[in-house]
């Protein structure tokens, strides 16, 4: 039997990082010998400021090339998307922002309208469709960025601290949306500083410190028995979990 290579074969969303180095100004900002992310449920990337979390997401998503090594998401051509810490919305209406993503990612013309409505609905933005995107509240902007990222039906979705600038209510709504997307079969890889969120949504934790992966452990284990000294002191410096 030949190797299965259909777009939907199991494990299609596996992320594999090998021998990865990212160097800048003579410094190794990131150095990851081997990292495999293959749980279907969300993976949370934690670590102190400047650990290289955003850098790792950018490298995995292919926004910047590594200095050395390789990153592979799924089969290579696997659809993936990313939501940035500060949403980058076009100076257009809410609907046009989503429509733009559908168009440039070659979603068939006759499917666009239906998909637009689905995504507006999913983001709770149907009533805001005609409003200029940049006049939305912070939470709505981030939800728009989220559903817009789903335009190409990604198998893998990278999220960089999506709740960091939101109030508790906005944060809750976004969390619900992320949970829904994850439950829908999209592999979520998310950087966050919100440990409560990480523990509720995450199945596994990747802990990054000084550009290196110090732990990759199931969520419960990480919070109860962190293996590394760095993770222990990181956790002790953050608020106690609910």
């Amino acid at each position, binding site marked *: 039997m030949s190797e299965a290579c259909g777009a939907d074969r199991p494990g299609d969303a596996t992320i594999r990082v090998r021998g990865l180095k990212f160097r800048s100004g003579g410094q190794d900002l990131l150095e990851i010998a081997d990292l495999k992310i293959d749980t279907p449920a969300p993976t949370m990337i934690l670590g102190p400021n400047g650990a290289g979390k955003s850098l790792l997401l*950018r490298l995995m*998503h292919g*926004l910047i090339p590594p200095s050395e090594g390789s990153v592979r998401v799924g089969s290579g051509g696997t659809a993936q*998307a*990313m939501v*940035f810490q500060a949403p*980058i919305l*076009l*100076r*257009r209406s809410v609907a046009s922002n989503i429509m*733009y*993503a559908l168009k*440039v*990612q070659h979603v068939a013309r006759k499917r666009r309208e239906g998909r637009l409505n689905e995504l507006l609905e999913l983001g709770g933005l149907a009533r805001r469709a005609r409003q*200029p995107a*940049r*006049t939305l509240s912070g939470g709505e902007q981030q939800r728009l960025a989220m559903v817009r*990222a789903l335009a190409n039906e990604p198998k893998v979705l990278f999220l960089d601290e999506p709740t960091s600038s939101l109030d508790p209510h906005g944060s809750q709504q976004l969390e619900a949306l992320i949970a829904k997307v994850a439950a829908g079969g999209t592999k979520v890889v998310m950087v966050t500083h919100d440990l409560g969120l990480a523990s509720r949504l995450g199945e596994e934790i990747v802990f990054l410190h000084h550009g290196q992966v110090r732990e990759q452990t199931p969520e419960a284990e990480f919070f109860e028995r962190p293996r590394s000294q760095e993770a222990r002191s990181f956790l002790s410096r953050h608020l106690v979990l609910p």
Partner: protein
Amino acid sequence: MHDFAQAFAQGLDLILSGDSDLWKVVLLSLKVSLTAVLISALIGMPLGALLAVKRFAGRSWLIVLVNALMGLPPVVVGLLVYMLLSRSGPLGVLQLLYTPAAMIIAQTILVLPIIAALTRQLVEDLEGEYSEQLRSFGVVGLRAVPTLLWEGRFGLSTILAAGFGRAIAEVGAVIIVGGNINHVTRVMTTTIALETSRGNLAMALALGGILILIAIGVNAVVTALGLTQRRVTNV
């Protein structure tokens, strides 16, 4: 003093009575300058966007050059275009000297660098803001240009207005290549200069008034667009 008051009154009368000489001059001015801005926009906006998003050898030099050309003195442009189009010049066979076409060419040379340089700056700023998101969508390189230009549409309209302001108010280039020929190449600025020297202040004042109104009108449009932009972009 009395003479000036009379000149104002006569000038106003020229405007209100629809004096055909006066309005022909106004229309030719608009035609020449708007055409020059249109041509400059069609070349300058893509050129500016290209300079903003493409990395190639000599790019920095080209940017410095385009920026420097923004300050071209109109009379010098007039002189160069004159030499180009004069009977013994390289383009003499076209017989364009002293025609509106020559004036359009001269003003295009004045306006093009303004539009290209300011567009380059605008698009480069926008690219800094959008590039990662667009890359994530698979929109890279030249493919990003239409998006960036559209996202900069409000800024671009201000740039076009600046170009138009430069063209419509300019006298040095059009007087040299147009020759200020009655009913053929006389525009507002050149007519003001001529009529003032002749002592026909009424005509000069009437045209001066219209020129100022056009300038105010263009600014009003740009301001209105700015307000719309604030509504749409919330910045």
